[in-house]
């Protein structure tokens, strides 16, 4: 388990991470989503021991991460802009990682490279961005670590490759309890694979829950009322967002679906329907509460 407790991180005067506490369970896929500049990459770099927190602590299996080699052997970090040695080939990277990661599986690396149709002796600096990402992912999987930290790794992969990677992750999760932590803007992709989601905004955590729990506890309704209504006119409802278009109201609210429906019904709507909530809508709704609203961005 990865445990981050009361983490602060400053870059000069800028507070990039503000009192983040997160728990990432083993053998689950953790999705880290957030607004631009929320601190996703910074948080991943803290997890990877690249940055040292200014306050709080980060542990993996109750051991601190920073400068702790046995702990660092348990994860592989894929940066959003991964570094490769000058003029190196995938084989060169394989050999280097094999020296560094004790459980590195060279045959698996070779097999994965072949299945992804990548040349082992071609210089990586001649690869496309997507191909470089593929090499990174293959290195990560072959390293046989317990955790993989992926910073926008899926961006840049074509849909087929994305599926392939998801399948690989899924297989390793089942087989050896791999725990990927994936930071991404592509919420639709994360929705398919993540068990747990953490939403960051302006350095802090808005939400961190199992995806199913979130979906069980946040619901989207559309209803029609004759008279105009405000948020205050819905007592007993924990409304996250309320949008009105004419007499059509779209409400996203927390709580049990039956209870929400009961409350709305008690207000004599002309129309009431519960709708499925996507991760994207959930993200937008949650961040809107904190003022991150698309309407404010439009002039």
């Amino acid at each position, binding site marked *: 388990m990865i445990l981050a407790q009361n983490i602060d991180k400053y870059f000069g005067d800028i507070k990039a991470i503000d009192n983040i506490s997160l728990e990432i369970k083993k053998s689950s896929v953790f999705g880290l989503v957030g607004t631009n500049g929320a601190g996703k990459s910074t948080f991943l770099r803290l997890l990877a021991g690249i940055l040292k927190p200014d306050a709080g602590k980060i542990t993996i299996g109750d051991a601190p991460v920073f400068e702790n080699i046995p702990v660092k052997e348990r994860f592989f970090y894929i940066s959003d802009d991964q*570094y490769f040695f000058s003029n190196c080939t995938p084989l060169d990277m394989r050999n280097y990682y094999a020296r560094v990661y004790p459980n590195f599986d060279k045959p698996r690396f070779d097999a994965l490279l072949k299945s992804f149709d990548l040349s082992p002796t071609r210089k990586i600096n001649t690869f496309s961005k997507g191909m470089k990402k593929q090499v990174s992912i293959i290195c990560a999987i072959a390293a046989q670590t317990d955790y993989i930290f992926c910073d926008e790794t899926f961006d840049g992969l074509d849909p087929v490759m994305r599926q392939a990677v998801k399948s690989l992750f899924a297989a390793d999760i089942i087989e050896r309890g791999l725990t990927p932590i994936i930071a991404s803007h592509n919420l639709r992709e994360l929705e398919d694979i993540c068990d747990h989601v953490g939403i960051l905004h302006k350095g802090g955590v808005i939400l961190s829950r199992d995806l199913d729990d979130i979906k069980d506890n946040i619901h989207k309704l559309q209803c029609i009322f004759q008279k105009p209504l405000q948020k205050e006119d819905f007592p007993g409802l924990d409304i996250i967002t309320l949008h009105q278009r004419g007499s059509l109201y779209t409400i996203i609210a927390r709580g049990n679906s039956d209870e929400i429906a009961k409350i709305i019904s008690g207000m004599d709507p002309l129309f009431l329907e519960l709708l499925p909530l996507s991760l994207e809508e959930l993200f937008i709704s949650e961040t809107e509460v904190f003022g991150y609203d698309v309407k404010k961005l439009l002039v």
Partner: protein
Amino acid sequence: MMSKNSLFDWRLIMDALRKTLWGPCLAFLGFFFAMPVYCAISLQNYKQGASEMTQAMREVNIISTINSIFAGGSPLLKAIFIVAAIVSALTFFYFIHSKKRVDFYFSLPVKRGKLFITNYSAGILGVLIPYIVAIILTLAVIGFNGMGSYIRWDVFWIGLASHVLFFICIYTVTVLADILTGHPVIGGLLAVLLLAIGPIIVALYIGLMDTFYPAFYSNLFDSSTALAHSSPLAKYVTIGSIPLHGYELWLVILLTALVFIAAYRLFLIRRSEAAGKAVAFSLAHPLIEYPLVFVATLGLGMLFYESVGGENYFWLFFGSVCGALISSRILEIINRFDFKGIRANFKGLLIFAICYVVFICFPIFDLTGYNDYLPAAEEVQEVRISMDSVNSFTNDIIYGQYNQSGNDIENQQLQMGKLTSQEDIQAALALAALFHQEQDKDYEYDGQSSDLGIQYVLKNGKIISRHYDSLPLSVYISELKPILNSLEFKESQFVTLHRPIDELKIASITSFESGSKEFLDIGGGQTKLKNLRPEIKEELIQTYTEDLMALTSNQMEKDVPLGIITLLVRNPEESTTPGIAAKAPEIEYTYSNAEAEEEMNYATVNFPIYPEFAKTLSLLEELGIPQDYWQANLANIRELQIIDQSGDKPGTIAISTEDYKVQLEKYGNSYTTQTTTVPTIITDRAEIARIMKETAPSAAFSYNCLINFDSNKSVEVLYANNYEKYYASQRYYLITK
């Protein structure tokens, strides 16, 4: 699998080397041409030119060439190592300046310490391996040419040690600079600054003292050694011209170890987010900026101040303000990588300005009383005096020693002017007080003048030195005479005369009037003097010493010396100054004759012979030098040319081309220029005799510091000889009271 606990992993080091192979290749290219190729070409040239050289010369040249390749002073190797050290450090630690690379390396299960050691070691090996290969190839070339026996293995090993040590030192300093900064260019600049700051500070110190402290004894300050010791880079560059001592190598090792530890510790705590910033540690910024700003402020201030002759403080202020503003704004711009940094941190600049103003008041107003320092007599245990007019005839013994620096010479001259009795100390203090008092006055310098260097050895162990600029003899003669009468002073001045007799040889006796003689040699007398029996030589030297010690300042004030006795003094095996060899090291020459051996191993010293030295003159007469040898032969004087360049005559005038041609034909090139002062020609015998009584040969004045002369009024004495066009001559000066 690598060892987790060890910081040292050979495979990672080799990996790092392989990834940066261009560096070792470039280094090898440099060493290859500087060592085996150069050696092969040189040896080939010697073989081809063998017939033009003697065997001894050829061997000396081969030894010199072969050993210069390996020696610590080899300029080619030094240049390669310095560049390689800086480039290698910047290359192997380049990764800490790139966010991408930092993310990669610091996320790996590799301790930061191991990363540091890996890259540090790879950077060193990337230069040393090519160097070792080049050495092996050079040795092979030498062996192939059958010249292995000429290798001086002590030179070889010392050279290797010094190159390797200094390379590692400069490399480690550059690594530290790299770690302190977040950008490779800034890291390189800081490295150069760290290596150069020592010499800069020394130069500033010398400039400050010279500018604001007229009593600063600059001759005593060994600026060359100070500069050489101010930085490992400076020390390395000066190897060869300034000797390298064993303890200095240990100092380099210690410094390198300290810098290494600092670099290592800072690397461990260096924040990853510093990648790409100008300075990696916020504390480092002021520590780097303000010393630099200080150097620029003081340097520019002194430059402007000195450009107006040190007369106007406005230019000191102007230069200081320019230096402070320009340097601080540039550094703020660099720190932020943004031109808008020009407006940043004025508060810091203001604080610096206040501190600088406080600092500069000290030299401007001499708040420490440096220039006015004069100890009380009861505080002083010993005084040492050095005056250039007094020292002139003792200089040879010092210049004859090998490898003496300027301040060693000055130190020795001070040692030769020791005074310990209270009476003498008080006389010296009176002299110093007079010099200090008269410093700012304007004087005419038409004759003898002298500066004063004085060193006080206090009873509390402190040694304090001061120097005063020249004054005319007429100002200080009264204060100087008691010192010249001091037996202790004379004994320390003429230290040569107290050397063991077998270290002394008599080279010659020369009259100052020898120009008027037909032959310079006195009928074989000079040769006879060189081969005196030891007991006669001893008697002559002892007699002369007694006469010299008995000479009083009143007598010196009255008479000029008649001539000189030249002694050859054997160079000591070790100089009086610790660590400085008296003889040329390493290469022993085979002497073809006794004269060459004499020249190499003996120093020449001249001592004056005064008319009062009756016993000496009598003994010399017994040895074949007649009394009239010391007198001018007036009959041989053809004419006198009196040249008066004093203010009451027109001075130099241009002469017509015809007159110039006439003068040229008559007097030769030596005495004629197109703007010469036209001399007054005297041919009357009585007038010649009268003038000769009032003048003395110019050489005589340099052996008597109490006789004054008028340098504006010289007399060229032309002698008759066998040449039609050109005449032998000698310059005389009018003696003044």
